[in-house]
């Protein structure tokens, strides 16, 4: 069995703003070249891939938190989705 926390930690080390932006576009969001959400520019992606809303929702979290919340998925599924996208293998 995969240690899901370990997988998450490993993935986090490989994530940066560009990869997170690409994943977000892949799952249906529009991201501008300066790493902001096109429909709500208060949402932005920092250099280490952390997503933060400086506006109304106050969301702050990583790509896993974001997918979990936005796609209504349990955390392990969100982590495995990102791992699958990046070709990171787990058992």
């Amino acid at each position, binding site marked *: 069995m995969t240690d899901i926390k370990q997988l998450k930690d490993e993935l986090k*080390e490989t994530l940066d703003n560009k990869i997170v932006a690409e994943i977000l576009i892949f799952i249906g969001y529009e991201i501008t070249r300066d790493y902001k959400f096109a429909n709500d520019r208060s949402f932005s992606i920092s250099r280490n891939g952390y997503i933060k809303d400086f506006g109304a929702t106050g969301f702050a979290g990583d790509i896993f938190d974001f997918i979990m919340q936005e796609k209504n998925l349990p955390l392990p599924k969100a982590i495995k989705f990102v791992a699958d996208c990046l070709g990171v293998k787990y058992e």
Partner: protein
Amino acid sequence: MSNLHKLPNPLDFINFRAELSNKIKFDDVEPSYDLNKIFDSLQNNSIPSGYISKLFDLQILEHNPKAKEILKEFICYSKIDDSLAVILKDNEEIKTIAINRAKDKENNLIKWKTYGSKKHIQYKIKDDFIFIVYGMAEIILCELFNVSYIAFQSDSITKNLQNHKQWIEEIKPMIQDKYLILLLDNDKSCRETIKPIKEELEEPRNLIIIEMIELLQTKAFLSDVGTIVSSEGKKVWQEHNQELLEHGYDFRDFCNKIKNPQLIEEILKNTMKGKL
């Protein structure tokens, strides 16, 4: 923001990403620090007495004519963090500066705080036997022992080698006809690097896996033949001592335990012979 659609098939991401790169060029975000300036600020600091021994037992360095040169090339001292720092370069370009023991804003200890690339793979390939090691200190040990090596800064880098530019373009083509000797840390995440590395080889048989317990067993065998001559005896010894071995015990721990560089080399050679 809520968007409760199904997620796409993640296997499509690679192609999607390739197509996306033709449509959008994301801004390069400059790091908030200048790696060269950090290096300049470190390189003239003298290393306080007793600090090198925090990384290695000094006996490992004794009588090594290249030790001074290697330490000068790879190790600096950070006054701000009061810590040794390991510098990784690609030719003369600074790729990574890793502070051994830094502090965050809340004064919590950060082991190997890294500036620059965490993904940079340090390597030196000069013969057919290449040690695969994990961690910053192991790089310096490989330099001291003057062996071919590929050093991953962390286990996680191996999980995505198929997308690692330096690995694909520089390293992978050089290793296909070589033996790779994995010096595994005593933990699960390090053992999980075996599979992805194996998958990168045309000849997976050329992979030699060495656990720290096996090095310790060779040491025991060399110094006390009487206790473990039979294969059954070896098995019993290994099972018993594996349980006692500290989680995360690594090659640096082993070298610091043995201390004598000639004996370390002998143990490595004997362990490898038993595997070939």
